């Protein structure tokens, strides 16, 4: 039962996050983002983290997205701008960089059994290694691949924002 809910909500969260990127109107992508946040909140509820879920709704789906939508409405970005940028060179460079990154990610997956700490986290484990060591073990050994993927995504987001802002002259 919970698994079904998790699959539905997780799937909807992923689809709506994709739609945030692909929606043509700025306001629509903002709204898909609200929906995505909402679905993530449902996943928190499934994990029995109700408090986190409520904060997710109030702060992200509520306050922050309200500010973003307010800004979008103020700027009146209703017209869908056609992207007419010379993309030939950047496509070649982009595909090349993608291949390099993919190879690097292959290397990353080799490093997954580097972890110094085995087994579940217990109080004695935390006492021996310290909290920071435990977290870094998680981040840089167990979940290295997702960590790298997220960092690539964030970099792409920053570069994308710069490109989009530069286009308007």
């Amino acid at each position, binding site marked *: 039962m919970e698994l079904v809910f998790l699959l539905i909500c997780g799937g909807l969260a992923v689809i709506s996050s994709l739609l945030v990127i692909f929606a043509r*109107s700025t*306001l*629509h992508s903002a*709204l898909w983002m*609200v929906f995505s946040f*909402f679905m993530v909140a449902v996943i928190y509820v499934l994990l029995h983290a*109700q*408090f986190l*879920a*409520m*904060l997710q*709704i*109030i702060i992200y*789906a*509520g*306050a922050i997205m*309200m*500010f973003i*939508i*307010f800004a979008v*409405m*103020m700027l009146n970005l209703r017209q869908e701008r056609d992207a007419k940028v010379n993309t030939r060179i950047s496509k070649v460079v982009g595909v090349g960089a993608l291949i390099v990154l993919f190879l690097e990610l292959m290397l990353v997956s080799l490093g997954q059994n580097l972890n110094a700490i085995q087994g579940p986290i217990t109080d004695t484990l935390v006492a021996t290694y310290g909290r920071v060591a435990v977290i870094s073990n998680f981040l840089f050994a167990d979940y290295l691949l997702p960590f790298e993927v997220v960092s690539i995504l964030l970099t792409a987001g920053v570069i994308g924002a710069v490109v989009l802002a530069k286009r308007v002259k």
Partner: protein
Amino acid sequence: MLEFMTILIIKTLVAFIVAILIVAYSTWIERKVLGHVQLRHGPLRVGFHGLLQPIADGVKGFFKEELIPDNADKPLFVLAPIISMGAAVTLVVLIPFGDKVTIMGREITLYLTDLDVGVLLILGISTIGSYGGILGGWSSGNKYGVIGGMRGAAQMISYELSLALALIAVVMVSGSLSLVDIVNSQTGLWNIVKQPVAFVLFIICGLAEINRTPFDMPEAEAELACGFNVEYSSMKFALFFMAEYCHMFVFAALVTTFFLGGWHGPIIDGPHWFFLKTFFMIFFCVWERSTFPRLRYDQVMSFGWKILLPIGLLNILLTGLWMLIFNI
């Protein structure tokens, strides 16, 4: 399991029907009270003293022509009233109408759910609901609509803060985020006595959140020709209208729950006290509408940020000090 589900479904249906009936008849109360305040009669023809007027209005709403403007953003235009009404009805789930009662040997609670994060969920869902009005205004492709929607967004951000601050003081006194626990903590002494400042803050900010008259910036008939719902017709308009009255009912019920002791009262505790207080608050909403003129938009904003917010913060500080000194 089956018994539990059956009881839950029956309770949900009853709560929903009661809420919708109260929503329908608060339109009647509003028109009747406004009429008598202005030395008129209000609705009089349909049924005894206009008692069937809400039903006639509903039927009329269904049979009106649906119009969607050419330059409207169609999916959002359809979605906006649904968001408004959906969020408003969802809030009814959280309201504790009464304590446990025994019916046919079974102990049944007169509330649908008792979440340990109830107060936060109310704040969250009410924010989601306000997207309805904002998107409705924006998607209708009308400048009055857009201005109304933007005013709605700005007002929501400003007054939600002070509303939450007022609630924090209540939560501090009651020691819980669950609505049922908050009501139970008011046995004997209601929160209106313990937290008079928070009570006034909550009433003012709540009226702003549900867009009642001194703060009805998003629709301001005189300036914006009805603002965010200017392009809506037929049942979509009726949904916005019902959402507004549903919010009024929820607001009245929440004031009762947070400050007026919920189902507690002299002689016998029970849901009758809850409904009595809730109807008094609904009457209050209509009463103040006929008393106060609409504020100017910039006055609303500066009032929210420069007066209500500092008062809310100061109230929390004083409540904390008071609890610390008297060791409560």
